């Protein structure tokens, strides 16, 4: 029977077993970090989709959001013009919203808009600098549709669920 400590046993283990142990350790550590991240993500969502308080919608489908933010759909059900508003291209909330809802990288969306702008087809949504600015825009425009980070102060802006 060996009386070596566990760490000493690992040091003297064959290379394959050492690699396996290291991979397991890294895997467990990453798993713990991931679990903590998930727990944090569950408590604070990565983004929230907001509309004007007078907007009757309580939930919107992802497809509707894609069409609205790419301006393929321009009217709410009651005929009000949809006014989507984006955040800065380098913001984390824009990146998360773009990849999970639009299912395109921010670069791909920028490229889409460059094509539309310079061929005279359409103009992109305004880009605002912060959550507060987006909330302010949404409160000002009845047809506004925006997104903010999970920790943003919403004031009277209404959060809608994404289906």
């Amino acid at each position, binding site marked *: 029977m060996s009386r070596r400590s566990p760490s000493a046993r690992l040091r003297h283990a064959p290379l394959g077993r050492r690699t396996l142990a290291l991979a397991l350790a890294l895997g467990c550590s990453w798993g713990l970090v991931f679990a903590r991240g998930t727990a944090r993500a569950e408590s604070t969502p990565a983004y929230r989709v907001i509309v004007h308080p007078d907007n009757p919608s309580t939930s919107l489908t992802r497809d509707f959001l894609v069409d609205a933010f790419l301006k393929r759909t321009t009217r709410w059900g009651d005929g009000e013009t949809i006014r989507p508003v984006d955040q800065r291209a380098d913001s984390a909330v824009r990146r998360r919203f773009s990849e999970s809802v639009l299912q395109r990288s921010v*670069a791909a969306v920028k490229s889409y808009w*460059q094509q539309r702008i310079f*061929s005279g087809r359409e103009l992109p949504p305004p880009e605002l600098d912060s959550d507060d600015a987006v909330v302010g825009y949404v409160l000002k425009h009845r047809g506004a549709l925006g997104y903010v980070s999970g920790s943003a102060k919403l004031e009277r802006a209404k959060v809608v669920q994404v289906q």
Partner: protein
Amino acid sequence: MGSHLRSTDCAKRASFAWFAVRLAAWLSISIWTSTALADDDSSTQGALPVEVHGFVSQGFIKTTANNYLAKSKSGSFEFSEVGINFTKGLTDRLRVGLQLFTHDLGPTGNYRTRFDWFYLDYHFFDWFGVRVGRTKLPFGLYNESSDVDAARVSILLPQSMYPVSNRDFLLAQTGGEVYGIVPLADAGGLEYRLYGGTVFYDTADAMQAAANVKVPYIFGGRLMWQTPLEGLQLGGSLQKLRLDADLILPDAQIPNYQKAGVLPADFKNPIPIRIPALLAIASLEYSAHQLLVAAEYSRWRSALNSAVPSFTIPTVESERLYLMTAYHVNSWFTPGVYYSLYFPNASDRSGHDPAFGAVPGSPGIGRAAYQHDVALSLRYDLNQYWLLKVEGHFMHGTAGLTPTLNDNLPLSSLRQDWGVLLLKTTASF
């Protein structure tokens, strides 16, 4: 006659330049006042100021052999584009816009400022809108944005499908367009564009051997199915046009043609010609997450009709295709690659058919019958307004070259395998 045409063109260009200056001044004032009004009305809904966007590009092109697009064998900086556009929503449904554009690419462009597009657009519903003015032609996936370097990864779009030499014919038309997206419930949506009008051709860019170049009609449409799989769209474009012109033969060559029996003894310039053309493209694009994949296949059918039989060319059908992909590695780096193929005559892809040789009985046009183009592009976005690109092409064949840039040598005598290096930087806002 030629000098008269040139002086008329100069006068037209000068008056156009003066008009452009006045327009720019008027727009600057409009923007200032509109912005001021927008600020004053910032508390109200629906303040719609003039939106201004622009871009400036400067490129460099160098080839290992053969002059391509410019005098590229020795390296050329004649590769620039500048555009600025102004768009104003007059109401939620009515919008006006215009773009001024100037460019230089080898012998074309020469920084003449022109209206790239201008329009009045009324958006009745998402499934129906009307637009009148000079509008970009929805032909294939990227024809409308082919001038805009910032809108893509590659410096040159696949030249089999979007040849820069055809820019003045294929980019925009003056007339009307109807458009819309018809929702198909769970099956996605159907985007349609139908247009008709004419193309006002700038004679300053005309071939030196042609005058009175006109496009009496152009019409067509594009139908794209936006599939339920996000980012996947496929569809097709069809375009029909006719180009009329007067072909002017150099006076010195007329006696030679007459001796050879090609021209009648009483021949006098010019030779009126008509070129009817029918163009079709099938398109597929998948753009989702970090990946872009696009592929298009096209056939262009054209003929050259003239009262002089020896200057008549029967119907020829060219074949064009490409496959392109790009991957957004991160926010600042995107590599891309494409393969593009061009056959000017789909009935003679190898160039060995003597029926299509330059002279009856010759062995065929050889390497001028095809052009294979493999391109690798690297795009660096330095920030959201400024980018740099590097691109290399390996070319096999000479079909995309022009004799006028290559000492008027026949394309079949130019170097078969050659390379292109391009560098470009673009700022846009």
